[in-house]
């Protein structure tokens, strides 16, 4: 696959139409009034036709949230969020759970087309990627569900799971990220409106990549997605998450929670390409991406692998983590974070080693251009019982230009003398030599940067599923548009 030629194509398209996903779909929204209080939470719960226990769970979280302070330890700065000035529920109207795509609002289908997700085609092509498409807060269409159901895989919206599989949800919801975990996750617990739910039964290797495309649509609507993936004993699942958002002047809050549970011998691979609207060159607009993602390797020999390519959002605050509880369990974190213009990212991971011979690998690639700040913040914690635990961390930062920043904040705590923890870090700039070398071979400065950066990120990019790899390569070029010359 040719990297830079496509990138250039993309960039050219963008010049005409700066951010191609910055369009607004004209669909009537059904919206709860602005602000947050118990009534709003009751409204959401009612809209979702939730059982009483769910409402109580939300209210408990809300009460706890009221006692909490918004965290300020991350190296990011943004205008104070007025939580009473946001909408907490918005759903496209006239959508009474469509049974097929024919029942889906044609406007909505057009939106997906612009985003390059031809659902219809995908349905016809039958069975490579199942898409649980989330439009704002309500799941619009879930494809391949029948096929997955046949195999015993549950792949549905979390709201549906609350109604249809209450025992599973009760057992696992909040078991990895409890409502008291942090400010944003507590908020999410109180007001989450949708997200995906996946359960893979014992011994099954899920044959298709599961994916969700998130999209923020209504102005001033915070997005509070909640995703939960449970891989039962000996199972395997790969989940892809991709995000695009329309252009807005006001900042939009996105506070999602993702919980993963891998039981004995199970493996979960979770890949994200995040390109929420980053704001304009001056930093106006753009998404606040405050996400809590955590996986628990509960069983022995289980494995959770996070791969993320973060190119969007004005502010990113995100630390996909692994709790390595089972003996011999493995946690992996592969990350590319690109910040350009006025973007800020504070991202990294936490690897908590509890079980014996647990292993974790962290590969983080931060790229900073423009006036952006990019921080890797990570914690490797080896607990007393984690005999023989091992960690390898590699943090590389690449700077483009003289006005951006790269910061690395690794925390290491080991309480077991048999642990082996390695940390490697580099900071480099794209050298003038490299640029000239590439240009002397005929590449334009933009093409050269894209090629060099893609090379820099290679170890992470190769962890992405093929479908995502191509999109991600393009995104890297797009995100760095205007960073040279």
């Amino acid at each position: 696959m040719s990297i830079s030629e496509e990138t250039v194509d993309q960039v050219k398209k963008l010049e005409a139409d700066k951010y191609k996903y910055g369009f607004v779909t004209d669909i009537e929204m059904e919206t709860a009034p602005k602000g947050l209080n118990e009534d709003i939470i009751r409204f959401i719960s009612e809209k979702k036709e939730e059982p009483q226990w769910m409402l109580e769970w939300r209210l408990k979280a809300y009460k706890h949230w009221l006692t909490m302070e918004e965290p300020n330890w991350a190296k990011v700065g943004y205008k104070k969020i007025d939580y009473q000035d946001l909408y907490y529920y918005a759903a496209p109207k006239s959508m009474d759970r469509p049974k097929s795509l024919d029942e889906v609002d044609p406007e909505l289908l057009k939106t997906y087309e612009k985003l390059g997700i031809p659902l219809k085609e995908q349905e016809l092509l039958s069975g490579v990627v199942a898409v649980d498409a989330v439009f704002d807060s309500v799941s619009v269409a879930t494809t391949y569900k029948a096929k997955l159901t046949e195999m015993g895989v549950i792949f549905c919206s979390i709201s549906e799971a609350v109604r249809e599989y209450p025992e599973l949800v009760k057992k696992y919801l909040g078991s990895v990220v409890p409502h008291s975990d942090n400010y944003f996750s507590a908020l999410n617990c109180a007001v989450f409106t949708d997200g995906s739910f996946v359960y893979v039964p014992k011994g099954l290797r899920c044959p298709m990549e599961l994916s969700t495309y998130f999209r923020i649509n209504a102005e001033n609507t915070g997005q509070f997605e909640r995703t939960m993936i449970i891989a039962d004993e000996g199972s395997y699942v790969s989940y892809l998450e991709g995000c695009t958002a329309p252009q807005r002047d006001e900042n939009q809050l996105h506070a999602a929670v993702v919980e993963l549970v891998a039981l004995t011998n199970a493996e979960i691979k979770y890949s994200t390409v995040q390109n929420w609207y980053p704001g304009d060159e001056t930093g106006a607009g753009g998404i606040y991406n405050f996400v809590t993602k955590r996986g628990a390797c509960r069983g022995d020999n289980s494995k959770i692998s996070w791969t993320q390519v973060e190119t969007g959002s004005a502010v990113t605050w995100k630390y996909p983590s692994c709790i390595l509880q089972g003996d011999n369990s493995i946690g992996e974190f592969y990350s590319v974070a690109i910040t350009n213009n006025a973007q800020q990212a504070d991202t990294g991971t936490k690897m908590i080693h509890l079980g014996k011979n647990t292993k974790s690998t962290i590969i983080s690639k931060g790229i900073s251009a423009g006036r952006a700040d990019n921080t890797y913040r990570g914690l490797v914690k080896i607990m007393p019982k984690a005999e023989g635990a091992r960690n390898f961390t590699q943090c590389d930062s690449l700077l483009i230009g003289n006005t951006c920043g790269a910061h690395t904040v690794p925390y290491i705590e080991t309480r077991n003398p048999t642990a082996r923890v390695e940390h490697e870090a580099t900071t480099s700039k794209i050298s003038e030599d490299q640029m000239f070398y590439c240009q002397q071979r005929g590449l334009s400065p933009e093409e050269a940067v894209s090629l060099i950066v893609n090379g820099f990120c290679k170890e992470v990019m190769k962890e992405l599923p093929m479908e995502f790899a191509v999109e991600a390569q393009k995104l890297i070029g797009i995100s760095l548009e205007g960073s040279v010359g």
Partner: protein
Amino acid sequence: MSLLSIRDLHATVGGNEILKGINLEIGPGEIHAVMGPNGSGKSTLSYVLAGREGYEVTRGTIAFKGKDLIDLAADERANEGVFLAFQYPVEVPGVVGMTFLREAYNAKLRYLGKQEIDAMEFLKFVRSRAKTLNMSDDMLKRAVNVGFSGGEKKRNEILQMAVLEPDLAILDETDSGLDIDALKLVSDGVNELRSENRSMLIITHYQRLLNYIQPDHVHVLAHGKIQRSGGKELALELEAKGYAEFSEEAA
């Protein structure tokens, strides 16, 4: 008509004038060698021709295929057919050699308004070229110049040249850091690429390389000017006498 015509070329680097009035005509298919002592401006000449940033032309003209080269960016010059084989080839970590070659090749095709090449077809093309230079597939799978030996780097430069098929190849001290076997291999590769419509400008300290790649013309560059020009016998004379007379001349 000349392929490359340099007239009264003056150039500065960081405010210092390094080239002080170069005149040089290179016809199609000709091989010119530029020799000279350290600090004479040989590498500066190659960078000025290739359009490296920071190398400023203050006077004079460079015409390439009748076009004014000075106003073109480095990548445009490359796509017009100017190739520089680097004295110190640069590492591009994570970028596989084959990908790098294809990106470069397609950039040129796009520049010329042509259709990009099919990946499989290109693979075959590169393999055939690599064979002549005794380069294994393994080398093409590695990141560009990363962990390459001196000889491998230089061979890689010549492979790029063979693939990009320039009209003018500038070889900047391609012989430096090569042992006799590697020098022979690289020279064979270069000789293979000699043709009546490909000119070369070979920059070197030593006559040694010119035993393998026989030039049509030899120039002595010292103090930012071409001090003497002649046939290949001039190189032998320099080998015997050294550059002393040119430093005296200037002094």
